[in-house]
């Protein structure tokens, strides 16, 4: 079984992102970039399925600027077999990403596509569901446990009231939640080995697809700031403030 994992290069989760003064975009030109944390979990899950003898090949794909290759190298060092890079400087929105991923799926024919439930930059939480729709496949979103058994993926999903477990006919799309696994740290020898693995370069023009953004960002702004609070001395002062000043209890 072949598994395709989609990974996105995003601003590192520790970076506090701010809008630019003219509100036309965000200040990230010098920010540290990393693999989207949810995608790292997706790579880990695919590699574990390979280590368990369920998958025989793990293929990574990333879409975007040339530096996405660094992100792909990280995934290859974790243990993926090879990678595809659809290189473009054009802003790709989830529907365009899903369309390009479908074209890759049509070429690679994986039995499973695993991707993060959401990217921590645009916080859209859409691509996996959109890809499943375009492929006409089942979708196991927000997965915290995955089992492959007799032609089906049994996926436990984190939902608002607890969890639910679904059985999906393969091929299927799975999106990962935080509790699915803890991604491994890559070791130096793995990084060296990964340099020999192949990254095939593609371009959006290789596929007959309209990838024009559907949403135009008119402006980005800072959310309203909370006014500075105070440190109180003890519980009695706190309750007095909550009762008589804030009037919330």
């Amino acid at each position, binding site marked *: 079984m072949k598994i395709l994992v989609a990974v996105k290069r995003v601003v590192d989760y520790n970076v506090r992102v701010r809008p630019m003064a003219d509100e036309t975009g965000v200040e990230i030109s010098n920010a540290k970039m990393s693999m989207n944390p949810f995608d790292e979990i997706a790579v880990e899950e695919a590699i574990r399925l390979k280590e368990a003898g369920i998958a025989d090949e793990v293929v990574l794909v990333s879409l975007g600027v040339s530096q996405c290759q660094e992100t792909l190298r990280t995934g290859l060092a974790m243990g993926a077999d090879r990678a595809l890079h659809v290189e473009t400087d054009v802003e790709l929105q989830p529907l365009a990403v899903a369309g390009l991923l479908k074209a890759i799926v049509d070429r690679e024919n994986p039995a499973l596509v695993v991707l993060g439930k959401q990217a921590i930059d645009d916080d859209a939480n859409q691509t996996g569901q959109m890809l499943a729709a375009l492929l006409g496949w089942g979708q196991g979103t927000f997965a915290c446990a995955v089992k492959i058994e007799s032609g089906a993926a049994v996926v436990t999903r984190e939902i608002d009231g607890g969890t639910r477990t*679904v059985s999906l006919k393969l091929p299927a799309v799975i999106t990962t939640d935080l509790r699915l696994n803890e991604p491994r740290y890559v070791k130096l020898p793995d990084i060296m080995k990964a340099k020999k693995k192949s990254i095939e370069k593609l371009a959006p023009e290789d596929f007959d697809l309209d990838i024009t953004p559907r949403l135009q960002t008119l402006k980005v702004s800072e959310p309203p700031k909370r006014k500075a609070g105070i440190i109180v001395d003890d519980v009695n002062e706190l309750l007095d403030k909550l009762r008589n000043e804030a009037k*919330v209890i």
Partner: protein
Amino acid sequence: MSALVIADHDNEHLNAATRCTITAAGELGGGVEVLVAGHNCAAVADAAARCEGVSRVLLCDDESCRAQLAENIAPLVVQLAERYTHVLAAATTSGKDLMPRVAALLGVAQISDIIAIVSQDTFIRPIYAGNVLATVQSADSTRVITVRRTAFQSAGDTDNPAPVETVTAAGDSGLARLLEENQTPSERPELTGADVVIAVGRGLGNKEHLDLIEKLADSLGAAIGASRAAVDAGFVPNDYQVGQTGKIVAPRLYIAVGISGAIQHLAGMKDSQVIVAINKDAEAPIFQVADYGIVGDLFTVVPQLIAALNR
């Protein structure tokens, strides 16, 4: 122009988040209709019909809709969508699961987690864990939207219920089957709608100490939430997580106990009306968003707080 709201429900009760979505849909200025897709869910349709601002309810009562699998519901929504300019759902886990599938089948963008409506095609939504607000304009003829519950008032009830009409299901896709559902049992108010939330973090140290937090929650009739660290450590179930990728809450009073305040956590609670932080580390970032802070050991402060509240 009119809007279709997809109801979030469990075949018995209408999720309160849908009431907020109905309010958002009403702000668009046209009619608001609600789709209730499920099985043996007439009570939900009746509740939706009584919501203020709703002009019609479409009820799809079918075995194939019982588990509300996105694979079965999305084709139904797509069939109905051409009559509407906007299709909205609450940004609950079911809304987030369903709506991108609907949008992709329609070949349009989806606009996630909106917190304000600027005009019929322009919306404000948080990005980068809520550190930035983006104003986005849609070029699509059908706008598929998920709505952040805490940003809109809940629609009240009216004495003049809207008519309920039945629609036919799209059938079972055969792609997915529900095997099991595990609801976290709780006697407490639902987290995203609670008036008071007590949230616990890594500082709790140990699952056995949770009873302290429960006692405090009992004293205030509060829901319990948590930081990712507390969920990962197994102190509380996953559905307690508040933050960028968990639940978004904005209660009247939020008390953060032993939570340092990572930006991912702040993203889920910084719109609370009043924030209280209890932490032994005076430098913890949570104090930067707190209205009132107590620097101290939670195992000293919380018992004092419980005693004072119960006095």
